[in-house]
């Protein structure tokens, strides 16, 4: 189970039985639109507030994931979910409808992998047979909480990122066919003293590097063990910094080998500045795009390192720096094990 200092190896190989990704209108114009199960043409998702819309996105992704996993709703024992809104209301309200035993998680944008790691841990330790996990974010709802009003004409710097409107969910099961979760590394809170909330990538990069190195050290493997190492939402700046930092520490990764969900989701001509972010970002890219590619056989071993910036609007105003975290989960499919 525990391998090294902070890595779990799952000997019972929990399986990702079914996943779903739901997106908004801006994601529909993006690079990976085909990998979504649903795309909403309207940010409101037919609701009367953006927060309700986010709840609906998450609910839809949960229901679709259960459907695709081929299980019944009653079979799901626990749901582990979280988002970026105060008191996790979108996740909680969605779980009110879903009616499953629920554990709320907060790891900012790293919540998706925090949830997947814990779900795998539960299933591996026979604490559950089926666990549902997921994460969501909504551009307008999250910007409202963390930044200026969406229609405010302030100029964002080139380091700013665009919050993804979307939700991704996965059903983790003890038996079945599908990609297997082989290990997970829990991140430390890393704070390099950066204070600019418009440069989250730069703040989060050291956390990602820390977790990747810890994962490789704990499992005593080389980075080349994985066909793909993908970070959550570092964006252009954070991605470059993380790659150079790894290089400096003696882990050299090519652009093919090391990618970022925040850069995979949108087209280059979309006005997202440094790339996508938000707790839905890694969830939709991993549970939609990347697992689809994995099932097609494009790669067999993948390490997902979801990164989160653990700031609040209040801590920023009180001139606190931005603590960050990253959780890593390794997923393998068709490896013959």
């Amino acid at each position, binding site marked *: 189970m525990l391998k090294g200092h902070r890595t779990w190896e799952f000997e019972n190989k929990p399986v990702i039985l079914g996943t779903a990704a739901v997106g908004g209108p801006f994601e529909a114009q993006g690079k990976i639109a085909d990998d979504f199960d649903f795309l909403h043409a309207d940010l409101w998702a037919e609701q*009367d*507030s*953006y*927060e309700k819309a986010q709840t609906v996105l998450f609910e839809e992704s949960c229901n679709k994931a259960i459907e695709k996993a081929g299980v019944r709703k009653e079979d799901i024992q626990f749901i582990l979910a979280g988002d970026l809104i105060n008191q996790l209301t979108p996740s909680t309200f969605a779980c009110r409808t879903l009616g499953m035993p629920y554990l709320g998680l907060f790891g900012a944008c790293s919540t998706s992998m925090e949830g997947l790691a814990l779900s795998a841990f539960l299933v591996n330790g026979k604490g559950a047979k089926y666990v549902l996990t997921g994460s969501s974010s909504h551009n307008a709802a999250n910007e*409202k909480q963390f930044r*200026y*009003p*969406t*229609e*405010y*004409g*302030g*100029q*964002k*710097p*080139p*380091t700013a990122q665009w919050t993804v409107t979307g939700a991704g969910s996965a059903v983790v099961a003890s038996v079945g066919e599908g990609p297997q979760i082989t290990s997970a590394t829990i991140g430390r809170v890393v*704070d*390099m*003293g*950066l204070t600019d909330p418009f*440069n989250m990538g*730069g703040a989060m*990069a*050291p956390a990602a590097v820390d977790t990747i190195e810890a994962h490789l050290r704990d499992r005593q493997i080389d980075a080349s063990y994985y066909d793909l190492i993908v970070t959550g939402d570092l964006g*252009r*700046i954070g991605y*470059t*910094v993380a790659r*150079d*930092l790894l290089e*400096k520490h003696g882990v050299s990764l090519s652009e093919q080998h090391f990618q970022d969900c925040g850069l995979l989701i949108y087209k280059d001509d979309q*006005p997202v500045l*440094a790339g996508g972010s938000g707790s839905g970002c890694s969830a939709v890219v991993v549970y939609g795009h990347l697992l689809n590619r994995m099932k097609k056989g494009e790669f067999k071993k993948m390490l997902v390192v979801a990164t989160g910036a653990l700031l609040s609007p209040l801590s920023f105003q009180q001139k606190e720096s931005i603590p960050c975290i990253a959780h890593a989960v390794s997923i393998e499919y068709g490896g013959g094990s």
Partner: protein
Amino acid sequence: MANKKNKKLTPVQQEYQKFQSEREAKRPVFKNCVKAFFVGGFICLIGQFISSFYIYFFDFTERSAGNPTVATLIFISMLLTGLGVYDRIGQFAGAGSAVPVTGFGNSVVSACIEHRTEGFVLGVGGNMFKLAGSVILFGVFSAFVIATVKTILIQWGGL
């Protein structure tokens, strides 16, 4: 200043921040200034047209045309905010569209739109001036200070 800020950081943090800032995309300050200059100037040009319009077609003097001109400009910026255009202009123009009175209108209306879902009293009313409020507060206060200084100098200083 920068040194003072850095003193609190550990050597590792300082080293990383240097490493990070070398890779950070910088704001294109000069380009932004040029854009701000032209867009801001263009907004003022429109203002001048409106002002002349009021003087020419209505019974306004150069002095009294100021108020309806400002009102018209704010109305236009509110309309553009509601249509979702002003934030795009803002991303392009930066200070060019933020500094003129249109930016002020935008900051008020964008906050109203944002918080409409929390109702008229706590939402729209409570958040309307969350961006513009401090501008009004410190604007009025600094006007008061300047006026006081002026009064003291003229009344008692005999200038």
